[in-house]
Structure formats: structure tokens, C-alpha cells
């Protein structure tokens, strides 16, 4: 930890990541995944999954 500046954090893959506004690599990764992300949200797949997991009529869409 000592060799990293404040704001860095260790990801689940063990790598160290800089603050998000300095994360050029992460931005590229995010852009690569945009089509899948948009599809997950636009298609309703995510809604169905959340509905199934939550399973609460008071929180149902």
C-alpha cells in the first residue's frame, strides 16, 4: 500500500487502480463494454433479474 498514492485501491483481481478520474485504462475498458451494458439495460434483462432476486410486490416494477 505504501507505494501507492492516496485514493488508489486494490481491485478484486489484485491490481491497483487509481482514482476514477485518472483511470484511463478503466475508461477504455468501460467503453469496450458499453454495447453489452446498454443491451442489458435496454432489453429488460436487468429488470427481470432484479425482480426475481428481490421478489417483493412492494418493490416490483
Amino acid at each position, binding site marked *: 500500500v505504501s507505494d501507492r498514492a492516496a485514493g488508489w*485501491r486494490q*481491485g*478484486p483481481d489484485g491490481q491497483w*487502480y487509481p482514482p*476514477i*478520474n*485518472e*483511470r*484511463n485504462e*478503466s*475508461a*477504455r*475498458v*468501460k*467503453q469496450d*463494454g*458499453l*454495447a*453489452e*451494458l*446498454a443491451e*442489458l*439495460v*435496454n*432489453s*429488460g*434483462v*436487468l*429488470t*427481470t*433479474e*432484479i425482480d426475481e*432476486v*428481490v421478489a*417483493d*410486490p*412492494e*418493490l*416490483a*416494477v
Partner: protein
Amino acid sequence: VSGPVIEPGVRVVVDDQLALLSTLELLVLPEGVRGTLVTTYAWQLRLTQALVSGRTTEGSLQRVVAQAGIDRAEALARVTRPDPALLEVIDPRPLVWEVAALRVERRANQLAAETIAAAHQLGAVVRVSDGNARGHVREQAELAGVDFAPWNLGEGPGGLTPVSS
């Protein structure tokens, strides 16, 4: 994102998925939308409940989180304690009277009642992801005369894109 034009200065109440994308800094707002997005406690609870479920380790929600380059614990932290510059969760207590009335008089569920009451309280419009644009919440919002519409997520400029790019 794209959708009906929103008058300048009008606040926007969003659903769980748009709230999540905002807290993950994956959402670029349509031109003209000013101010921080707002969501309700019920939408926040729905999303948090899904995130704490073990099932999300293999599901679509986990893939969304992974696209932000963070893990589930970090996503939970962002959703439960959102950066006020990215998302506001409206205090439900001042809404209780209208929420109660909607539940009793219109048989609205908690999610719909809070959404409508928040929109009325703030003079806001409601924008949701496509998947949440049909069903009970929409029906109740339309009955209540709330401006309710989906924000379709496109790609590239004006759509779903990291704010840091």
C-alpha cells in the same frame, strides 16, 4: 441517453438502474438536464437488495458492476452512500402522507407511491430504464399525472459512456 425533452432546471427522479449507472459514473445525461439525479428510498432498497444477494455474483447486475471496474462491495458502498454530486436519495419522511394516500386510495405499491410522491415534492419528471418503463409504476405515475418516460441508453456521445473518458 435519449428521451423526451426536459425543461431546463427541472429535477429528474430516476429508477434503480439509472441510479446505479450514475453512481458508477457510467451515465452521461442528456443535454439540458441540470442538477443531480434523484432517486427514492424504495428504488435504492430494491437495488441494494439485489446487490447483496448472492445470485448477483453471476448475473447481469454483476456484469454491469464489473464494467465499472469495481467489485460488489464498492458498488454497494456507492449505492448505499452515493456521492451527492452523482445521486441524491430523497428523504422519504416528508413524503409519508402522500405515499400513504396513494397506497390506500390507488392501491399503489411502495415503489410507485414513493416515485410519484417524490416527483410531486420536487416538481420533477420521472425517467426510467427501458426495462422499467412498463408495469405498475408506469400505470400509477400516469394516473397521477406524472411526466414518466424511459431513457433509452445509446452508445457513444450522448448515450451510455464513462464520464472520465
